[in-house]
């Protein structure tokens, strides 16, 4: 039970890293809290659901479609909302209000459009994709069922989301540390005023980061029907709270700290569910309070401030 819980926590945590990654990138670059983050995840989930329902499209290509679609949506949305927000006296606090409002609007519109009922994508859809990839590497046909990992069996969707999360983290890392735009993004994250003084087009850099943030949320949403049971227009708020806890644990403003935050959250959650199941949902709040009291800058806090 211990080994299973540990591995399950790791996989589950990787998924929560993916969920929190976009939120932290947006906070790191713009110092604003996107309280509609979970709602963009929900929209990504609905996009995957409709792509599957209408065109029988497997969720794997839907990840790329969701990412690109929402990254593109993010650019004009940034220019519509964020520059005005940043001109305010206290943009961080105002962002709470603005994005909370946006969250409510998104949820209401989605409810009107799709209704309130739960929606899902059949569980074996990700299993097919995992089997194809595993079969490619194994050189023979692989079963579409659960996947064995270090002697323990897990749903294929967990492994798929773990792999996708790992890839997303790697791509964000490459973007931040191996591309010119990434260097500029880190410069803005480090000190926005200095970045402006050195002639960096801060709004362009921020708009791209905002788009990537939304794209990552939508990509995480594609896995939501598999990892979170089903999807509804109302799921966003809960996801936002959890992802907020994840990024605070890892470190606010440090996208890569989100990985650590996600894994700590995932493992703690699964152990809690195994041994004190009734209390499991308290965990995000308990961890949030504990981190704020003991290490307010998060587990990787120091690196952020001096990046």
């Amino acid at each position, binding site marked *: 039970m211990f080994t299973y819980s540990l591995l399950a926590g790791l996989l589950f945590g990787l998924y929560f890293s993916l969920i929190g990654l976009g939120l932290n990138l947006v906070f790191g670059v713009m110092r604003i809290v996107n309280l509609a983050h979970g709602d963009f995840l929900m929209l990504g989930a609905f996009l995957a659901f409709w792509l599957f329902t209408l065109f029988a499209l497997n969720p794997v290509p839907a990840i790329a479609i969701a990412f690109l679609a929402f990254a593109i949506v993010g650019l004009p949305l940034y220019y519509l909302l964020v520059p005005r927000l940043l001109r305010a006296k206290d943009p961080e606090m105002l962002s709470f209000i603005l994005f909370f409002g946006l969250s409510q609007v998104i949820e209401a519109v989605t409810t009107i459009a799709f209704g309130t009922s739960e929606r*899902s994508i059949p569980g074996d859809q990700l299993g097919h994709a995992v089997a194809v990839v595993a079969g490619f590497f194994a050189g023979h046909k692989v079963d579409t*069922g659960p996947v064995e990992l270090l002697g323990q069996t897990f749903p294929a969707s967990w492994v798929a989301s773990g792999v996708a999360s790992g890839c997303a983290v790697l791509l964000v890392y490459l973007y931040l540390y191996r591309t010119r735009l990434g260097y500029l993004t880190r410069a803005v994250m480090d000190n926005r005023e200095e970045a402006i003084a050195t002639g960096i087009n801060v709004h362009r850099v921020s708009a791209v980061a905002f788009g990537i943030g939304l794209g990552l949320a939508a990509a995480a949403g594609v896995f939501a029907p598999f990892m979170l049971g*089903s999807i509804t227009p*109302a799921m966003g708020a809960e996801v936002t709270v959890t992802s907020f806890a994840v990024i605070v644990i890892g470190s606010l403003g440090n996208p890569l700290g989100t990985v650590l935050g996600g894994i700590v959250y995932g493992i703690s959650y699964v152990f809690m*569910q195994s041994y004190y*199941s009734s209390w*499991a949902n308290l965990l995000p709040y308990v961890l949030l309070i504990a981190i704020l009291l003991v290490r307010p800058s998060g587990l990787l806090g120091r690196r952020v401030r001096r990046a």
Partner: protein
Amino acid sequence: MTRLAILAALLASLTTAAVRAADAPAEIKLGTLYASSGRFASISMPVHDGLKLWIDQKNADGGVYVKAFNKKIPLKLIAYDDQSNTATAATLYNQLITQDKVDVLIADSGSVLTSIAVPIARDHKMLLIDQTGTGANFFTPDNPYIALMADPVSSVWPKPLADFLTHDGPGLGIKRVAMLYATNDFTGTQANTVRKLIKESNSGVEIVFDEGVPTETSNYTVLLNNIRASNPDAVLHLGYASNDIAFLRNVQDSGIKFKFLFCIYPGVETELLEKNLGRKALDYVFTYVTSSGMAYKNEFGMSLKEYKDAWQKKYADSKVEFGFNSIAGYTTGLVLEKALSVATSLDQLELRKAIFSLSGNLKTLDGTFELDANGGQIGEFTPVGQFVPGEGDHLKLLTLWPHDLASGKPVYPRP
């Protein structure tokens, strides 16, 4: 002289009736809440839509007959969206009573959003028309201001299940039972009842896994692994629709085979679960047989088929699935209609008396309407059934317990 007396009495009664009709309100105000979003939306909206369908039908017919005024009076629905939020619900229930001054207070669906209304209604001495809030602790001897319309009390729900396990279970080879439940009034009460009845049965059946999880739980993979480790002969999962969807999908994805799997909602909201999980995930799953799966012979209102047709016509966009909850909202309306037709005033305790006068005498789509002394619904009940593959690509729900209603034999172990 006798003729004169009769004429005088007739005139007096006609005058009284005319005065009563003249005093009649222009409309009967029904106040309720619904959740268009949030965790309970999927159980709230079907109930609300069912109630609205009844109201629209009655208003199209000139209203409902109200004995207190001896005439038909149109119904006015005052409904607010609590968004599944208990704090919002508390404010809105107060608003319905104190600001809107509704004649009839109807709770939102489900135990969580009803639990808020119970003390508020009682404090304001308003009768709470409880649609589907089944928590057993709502119904106490010191609270006359509640009556459960369309759903048995949570402690009544699992009795057939516990009876089936303790009577037929040992013969099938069921000795070890694992129970996982969501910790809310609805399923928590059911878990307590199952635990108690199994323990008291001395049937040799024992509970080897007994865990509660928060209602918000959306992933059961690790818990399933823990349940498997307890080596059960039967697994009971007691949760809401979203819990059942997540649970059954995790069972499917993890490849774990349980010999006996019971969930509440496959029989309650069959369309919703089939849409989410696919038919195969429900094959051989044990569940409750509710009014959507068993056509009770009703003496009042539309038949199940007529009602389903009316529902599908009115809600053709299919954003809200037809199921047990949609029948519950309509049933609430029918009971109210009957009560208004016998109540001599709109006084809350008179309404209660009128509703209680129907107890045991009214057959609805949910079965026999019968209340215990505290207002809990005990006439309707939930037989145990099992889904088996039917003709073509359809599921068939067999009734297994009680034996006098049985339409088939259990398939155990689950293939």
